[in-house]
């Protein structure tokens, strides 16, 4: 029922979501930690910036990324001077865009988990002469596990569900930037509804299963 190009789109989508989620867990942890602990006046501003992709239309993100990452844009000049070329129409470009787009879905659950731990376990660990790093890995991370589960699932699923940004900076290249959502759009526009149904129904089933998994394993951590 699914064609070779459909499978290639599925493979690419899983790869993109996987790489993006891994990067976001690494990048998101220090940001979430800082947001959870700081008393800085900047907390509000940084929190707002992290949350921006939730409210911005994908067209705004896609448009600015296309311009910023182009050869005349600041990011494009930087990547070109580093010998990396420009990012639109590349897999790396999609990863950068997806990291920005899915950032709040990873940072916020981790931040909530960190906040829920409170001061007390950290103080206890300190009196037992645990170093801050030791405390983080042996106390904070295990306690924040539900938050990490939510962050991983939401980050992955949200990247799989990405469409507008990819459409605007991807260029629809097979095996490089043609993800499932774009492939479905192509099928629909080409009036090949049978092919569109195959992939679209798969997306519905996947999204349902992912959320079911999240709500079953993690009944308290469901909210970001």
């Amino acid at each position, binding site marked *: 029922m699914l064609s070779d190009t459909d499978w290639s789109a599925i493979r690419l989508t899983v790869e993109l979501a996987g790489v993006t989620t891994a990067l976001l867990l690494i990048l998101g942890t220090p940001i979430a930690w800082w947001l959870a602990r700081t008393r800085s006046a900047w907390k509000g501003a940084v929190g707002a910036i992290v949350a921006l992709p939730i409210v911005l239309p994908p067209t705004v993100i896609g448009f600015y990324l*296309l*311009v910023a*990452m*182009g*050869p*005349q844009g600041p990011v494009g000049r930087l990547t070109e001077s580093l010998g990396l*070329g*420009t990012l*639109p*129409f590349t897999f790396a470009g999609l990863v950068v865009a997806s990291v920005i787009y899915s950032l709040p879905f990873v940072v916020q659950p981790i931040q909530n988990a960190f906040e829920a731990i409170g001061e007390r376990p950290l103080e206890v660990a300190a009196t037992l002469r645990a170093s801050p790093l030791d405390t983080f890995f042996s106390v904070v991370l295990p306690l924040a596990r539900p938050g990490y589960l939510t962050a991983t699932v939401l980050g992955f699923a949200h990247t799989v569900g990405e469409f507008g940004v990819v*459409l*605007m*900076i991807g*260029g*629809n*290249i097979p095996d490089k930037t043609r993800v499932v959502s774009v492939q479905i*759009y*192509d099928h*629909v*526009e*080409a*009036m090949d509804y049978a092919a569109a149904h195959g992939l679209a129904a798969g997306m519905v089933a996947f999204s349902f299963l992912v959320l079911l998994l999240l709500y079953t394993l993690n009944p308290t951590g469901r909210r970001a």
Partner: protein
Amino acid sequence: MKFPFKRCMATVWATLFIGPVYAADVQVAVAANFTAPMQKIAADFEQATGHRARLAFGATGKFYAQIKNGAPFEVLLAADDDTPARLEKEGLAVAGSRFTYSIGQLALWSARPGYVDGKGEVLKQGAFDHLALANPRLAPYGGAAVETMNKLGVLSALQPKFVQGENIAQTFQFVSTGNAELGFVALSQVVEDGKLKRGSAWVVPAGLHAPIRQDAVILVRGKANPAALALMKYLKEDRARAIIRAYGYQY
């Protein structure tokens, strides 16, 4: 001097009551490549007839799907001649209302001056990373671009460099932001009053691809709308045709 109150009031009444009786709105779905000329034509049309054309721009394939599913469009200005014919056959368009309002002109364009030469040799040299074109599966301009490259014998060499826009407007966006060094766009997007607006271009000779016939048709929802009929008539008039030609189309 006495203020001509009565005469003024007469004008006010006329605008308020007589105007709306004759002037109507018409919902028009317009192929993305025809955006610029249609905006001008619609403004002139309103001035000339009092009717107002409300325009939506996009890919013809998308409009087809929307019309089939009950979109409230009354006139379609397509990017091809297949879609209007198909709509007519399916009973979604008014039989006999179809005509070719323009023949599209394909151009190879770069935002950089001097990048594209007057003969399209740049395609054979292939010294670029990205060549933008409209998705040939969805857009007639994309199909014409593929046909052209095929005739020139460069298709398989250039295929790995393709970046595809969902429609011709997005293709233009890829090239105009410099993300693709060059691309196949509609000449109407890069010329105004017969002159190239910026960058460099090669107007693809008509012999390299089948003509891009763009047909207009009245949809069943617009059957009884005087504004729809007036717009179809207006598109054939000299004033509209002068605008169409200034953007590089033929008819």
